[in-house]
C-alpha cells in the first residue's frame, strides 16, 4: 500500500515535470490558432527561448533575466512569423517550419561559438535556476500520513510550474470572458465579420502572436533553467510538436488541452516506469508503443474516430482585405 502510494506520487511528479512545458507551449499555440494563425513553429520558438534563457542566465547571473531574454527571443520569432503570415500573406506552415529549422541550426551554432562546449551552455548552478519553492506548513503537515504526502506534491515545484498552472485558467478567462477573447475567437472563425465591425484583423492576430511568444518563452526557459541545468543540443526533442498534438487533442480549448498535456505527460512517465516491466495478462508492452501513443491518439481524433476536432474555420488562411 505504502509502496503504491509512493509510486503514484512519483508518477504525479514526473507527469507534472513533463507536462509543464507542454502546457505552456500548447496554450501559446492556442492563442495563435484561435486567432487563425497556424503555428507549427512552437518547437523552434521553445528551442530558441531555451538557449536564450540558459545563455543569459550564465552570462548575467540571474534566471529572471534569462527568462526575460527567453521571452524576448520567442516574441521576436513570433513576430517574424506574424510579419510573414499577416503582412505578406505567406504560407503559415512554411513559415513555422522555417523557424523550426532556423532555430535547430542557430541555437547550437551560437552556443558552440560563444561557450565553446560543443554546442551546449555551461551547467547552471542551482542559484541560477528556478528552484523548488517550499511553501508554509510543510513541516507541520508532513507528519500527517496521506495529507502530508499530497501536500508535498502541491508545493515544492518551481515558479514556472505554477506559472503554467495559472496560465490555464487565465487563458480560459481571457478567451471566453473578455472582449479581447471574443474578438480573438471571431478573427479565427470569420475575419471578414471582425473587419466589418471596424476592428483590425491584423492587430488582433499580432496581439495573439505576442501572447504566443511570451508563453513559448516561459516554456523554453522551463526546459533549460528549471527542469534542466543549461541548454543542450536539440533539447526540445519534439516537445513543440507534442504540444501541438495536445492542442488539437484538446480541440483548441484551454482545459481539455491541459488534460491532453497531462495525459501525454503521464504516458511519458508511464513509459519510463514500464521499461522492461511485464503487465499481467498483456505481457511486456514495448516502450515505443507507449511513446507513439500520443501521436496515434491525435491521428485517430483527427480522423474522427474518437470524437471530432474542429479547427478554427479561418485557420491558415491569410486575410486579404479588398474583395
Amino acid at each position, binding site marked *: 500500500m505504502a509502496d503504491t502510494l509512493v509510486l503514484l506520487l512519483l508518477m504525479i511528479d514526473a507527469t507534472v515535470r513533463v507536462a509543464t512545458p507542454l502546457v505552456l507551449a500548447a496554450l501559446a499555440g492556442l492563442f495563435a490558432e484561435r486567432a487563425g494563425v497556424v503555428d507549427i513553429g512552437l518547437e523552434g520558438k521553445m528551442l530558441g527561448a531555451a538557449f536564450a534563457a540558459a545563455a543569459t542566465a550564465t552570462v548575467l547571473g540571474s534566471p529572471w533575466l534569462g527568462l526575460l531574454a527567453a521571452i524576448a527571443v520567442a516574441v521576436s520569432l513570433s513576430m517574424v512569423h506574424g510579419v510573414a503570415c499577416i503582412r*505578406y500573406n*505567406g*504560407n503559415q506552415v512554411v513559415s513555422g517550419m522555417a523557424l523550426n529549422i532556423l532555430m535547430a541550426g542557430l541555437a*547550437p551554432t551560437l552556443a558552440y561559438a560563444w561557450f565553446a562546449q560543443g554546442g551546449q551552455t555551461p551547467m547552471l548552478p542551482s542559484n541560477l535556476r528556478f528552484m523548488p519553492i517550499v511553501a508554509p506548513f510543510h513541516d507541520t503537515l508532513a507528519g500527517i500520513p496521506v495529507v502530508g504526502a499530497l501536500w508535498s506534491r502541491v508545493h515544492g515545484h518551481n515558479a514556472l510550474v505554477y506559472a503554467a498552472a495559472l496560465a490555464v485558467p487565465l487563458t480560459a478567462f481571457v478567451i471566453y470572458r473578455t472582449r479581447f477573447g471574443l474578438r480573438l475567437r471571431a478573427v479565427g472563425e470569420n475575419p471578414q465579420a471582425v473587419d466589418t465591425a471596424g476592428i483590425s484583423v491584423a492587430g488582433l492576430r499580432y496581439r495573439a502572436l505576442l501572447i504566443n511568444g511570451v508563453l513559448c518563452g516561459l516554456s523554453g526557459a522551463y526546459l533549460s533553467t528549471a527542469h534542466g541545468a543549461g541548454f543542450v543540443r536539440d533539447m526540445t526533442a519534439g516537445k513543440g510538436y507534442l504540444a501541438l*498534438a495536445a492542442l488539437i487533442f484538446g480541440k483548441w480549448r484551454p482545459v481539455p488541452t491541459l488534460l491532453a498535456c497531462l495525459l501525454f505527460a503521464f504516458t511519458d512517465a508511464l513509459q519510463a516506469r514500464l521499461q522492461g516491466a511485464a503487465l499481467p495478462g498483456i505481457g511486456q508492452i514495448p516502450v515505443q*508503443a507507449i511513446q507513439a501513443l500520443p501521436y496515434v491518439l491525435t491521428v485517430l481524433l483527427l*480522423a474522427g474516430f474518437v470524437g471530432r476536432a474542429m479547427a478554427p474555420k479561418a485557420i491558415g488562411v491569410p486575410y486579404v482585405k479588398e474583395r
Partner: protein
Amino acid sequence: MADSRGNEAPAWVDLALLPAINLAAAFVVAGLVIAILGENPFKAMALLVYGSLGYGEAIGFTLYYATNFVFTGLAVAVAFHAGLFNIGGEGQAYLGGLGAGLVCLALGGAVPGLLVVPLAILAAMLFGAAWAYVPGWLQARRGSHIVITTIMFNFIAASLMTYLMVNIFIKPGQQSPESREFDASTWMPFVHEILAPLGIQLAKSPLNLSLLLAILAAVGLWVLLWRTRWGYALRVVGFNETAAVYGGIAPARVVVAAMALSGALAGLVGVNELMGVQHRLMLNFTGGYGYVGIAVALMGRNHPVGICLAALLFGALYQGGAELSFDMPRLTKEVVVVIQGLIILFCGAFEGLFRPRLLALFRRRAPVAA
C-alpha cells in the same frame, strides 16, 4: 497569378531572378550571423564552395547528398501540385529504408542481385507510399488535416523503427541497434567502382547508382505531371478543387494517389542511404532529408529542373558545411542548417517580400502587348 495576360513579367524573372534574390537574402543574413560569430563570411563562403566542389571526393559527396534531396524535393513538390503539404517525407523515407532493408535481408545472397535490387527499390517505394497513403486517405475521406497527420506519422515512424531495430533486427551480440550487413550482391554499385574498369578514375565517395534513379525520377515526374492526363488532373485539383469536380475529376482519388506517389519518392532515400552507403538497417539514417525537401521544393519552384538545381545547392551546402567546421573552429556544421532555415524563410514564408515589387518593376518595363 491574378494578372491579366500580356501584362505579366517575363518568366525568367519569376523562375530565375526571384529565387536568386531570395537566395541572396538568405546568404546575406547567414553572412551576418557568421560575422557576428567572429569569422569572415567571405572566407566562409569560399570554404563552402571549395569544400563542396573543389576536388573529386567533394563533388562525389555533394552529388550523393543531392540524390537524397532530389527524392525528398520531388516528394514535396508532387504533393504541392495537388494542393497538399507533405511534411512527412522524413517518416516516409524511414519506412522506405525499412522496405528496402527487408528485401535485402530476406533475399540477399539467395536470389541473384540483379533481381533483388529492383525488388528492394520497389519495396522502398511501396513502404514509403503506404506511409503517405494513410494521411492522404484520412485527408481525402475524413478531412483530417494532412500537415498535422504527416507530422504525427513522422513520430510514429520513429517509434516503430526504434522498436524494430532494438527488438528484432539487431545483430546478436551487438550493442548498437543495427542489422547484419546486406549481402554484397544487393548493394547499389558505387559510381567510382563502375567507372574504374572504363578507365575513368574517380575519387572514392558514397556516390552510387541511386543518382541515376534520382534523374529518372525527376524526368518521370515531369512527364507525368505535364504530359499525361493524370498529371493534368492532379494539377487541376491543386489549382482549383471546385473546377476539378466540375471537370469530372474526383479530387479524393487524386489526393490519395498524389500522396502515395509523394511517399514513394521519399522512400527512395532509403535506397540511396541503406543500399547505397550503409549496407545495413539502422536508426536515424534519414538525417532530416525529409524536412530539407521542403526547402528544395520551394527553392526549385516545384519544378523537376528547379528541384534538381536546388538539390545540388543543398547537397553542396551539406558537404561544404562539414568542411567549413574543420577549417573555422568557431563554426559547427549546423551553420548549414541556419542557411537552410533562412532559405525556407525567404523563398517560402517571405515570398511576398520581393515578389510583387520585382514583378511590378518588370511589368512596367515590358512593352505592352497588342
